[in-house]
């Protein structure tokens, strides 16, 4: 379970953060307007994820349990700041394209999620590889989504013109880009198709093997309570306490009572 190779494989395939766990959807949708942006964002996240996993795992016996969340956030935010400066210094064009999404890596659910669920319980080396695997899985998915969107939306892949564009004026036949795919609505449609396909795949896997896969609705599930991030942010315990509290007195808020995940 803790072998480096297995950790890598786990992140890339078995628990791929985007396609299987459906985590970190904000950057997934926002930066995948082109393949190169997706790749850049994925690699930046990978660096932060691997290093913060390593650091948190090294500190896991020193950080007191009660203040672990703020401590994790400080570790992650420090690495994000370093990565931000590196990208700004060495790849300014990527920095301009990604904008505030680089500092926003801090609030990416994948990173705190891994810190809480893996790095805080395991030794440094497996944690490092767990971070690397998860990060590379994230990178691959972002790049794939980026390629699809860029191909449909502009007819290019990594800025190389793959489909010759139509030119009405010159009377040249060719591809007319469906530019909605590199705009905001296209991102939602791509994600919707992705979610639907994943659902079908999981269903057919379930029918074939008879084994139910771990529920993966997570962030995109029906409520904040299923968000794995809620488990790591202060939200979930508070939410649960509140639920118990308001269970008796008729609560104004229909809170997150036991939803069955149907996946």
């Amino acid at each position, binding site marked *: 379970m803790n072998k480096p190779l297995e950790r890598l494989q786990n992140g890339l395939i078995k628990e791929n953060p985007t396609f299987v766990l459906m985590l970190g959807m*904000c950057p997934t949708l926002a930066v995948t307007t082109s393949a190169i942006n997706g790749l850049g964002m994925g690699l930046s996240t990978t660096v932060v994820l691997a290093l913060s996993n390593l650091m948190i795992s090294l500190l896991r016996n020193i950080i007191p349990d009660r203040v672990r969340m703020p401590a994790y956030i400080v570790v992650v935010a420090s690495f994000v700041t370093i990565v931000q400066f590196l990208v700004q210094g060495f790849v300014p064009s990527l920095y301009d394209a990604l904008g*505030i999404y680089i500092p926003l890596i*801090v*609030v990416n659910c994948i990173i705190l999620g891994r810190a809480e669920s893996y790095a805080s319980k395991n030794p440094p080396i497996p944690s490092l590889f767990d971070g690397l695997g998860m990060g590379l899985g994230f990178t691959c998915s972002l790049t794939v989504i980026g390629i699809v969107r860029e191909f449909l939306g502009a007819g290019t892949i990594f800025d190389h013109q793959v489909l010759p564009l139509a030119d009405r004026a010159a009377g040249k036949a060719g591809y007319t880009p469906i530019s909605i795919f590199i705009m905001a609505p296209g*991102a*939602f449609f791509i994600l919707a198709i992705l979610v639907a396909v994943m659902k079908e795949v999981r269903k057919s896997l379930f029918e074939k093997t008879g084994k139910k896969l771990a529920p993966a609705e997570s962030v995109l599930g029906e409520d*904040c309570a299923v968000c794995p991030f809620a488990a790591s*942010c202060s*939200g979930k315990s508070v939410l649960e306490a509140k639920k118990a509290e308001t269970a008796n007195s008729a609560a104004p808020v229909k809170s997150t009572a036991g939803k069955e995940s149907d996946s």
Partner: protein
Amino acid sequence: MFVKLLLLFISASLVNNVVLSRFLGLCPFLGVSKKVETAAGMGGAIIFVITLSSLVTGLIYKFILVPSGFTYLQTIVFILVIAAMVQFLEMFLKKNVHALYESLGVYLPLITTNCAVLGVALDNVQKDYDILTGVIYGFGTACGFAVSIILLASIREKMEYNDIPEAFQGTGIVVVTAGLMAIAFCGFAGVI
């Protein structure tokens, strides 16, 4: 001045809608939009927190980070300040303004790590807004979030009775709806 701020408000809330065109705060947008009531509560809490946090982070940036030359620490400082502020806000509301706490309290802790809150704080710095402009920008952004989450919740309530292809049931159809809403919000692009 007033016209400028009004235009900024409209641009932040409708034209560059925080969820539908910038994808910030997507988790609560998809997660807490099952009922209009809950969506309104979430929207209210977001308006409250973002407006306040853009004021606080603006002040901290201008009066602490810039004079001391620590501007590169902004990401770390902002996220910690926001987290601490939300905690204090919750305690304060619980003790003093109980009615407001009843309606918004549950959502407050969930917002701590919402990327829209940190996003607005960083935006204010990156776009070099002064404090008043920053607060208006934050308020506009949060109103945009509230409008879109309430709209989505109303659509979802209607959708309960529809016959949806099996693969798209649940999350899928909600994301498609969000995409259609994003197309509609593209229409605001010509307003300013």
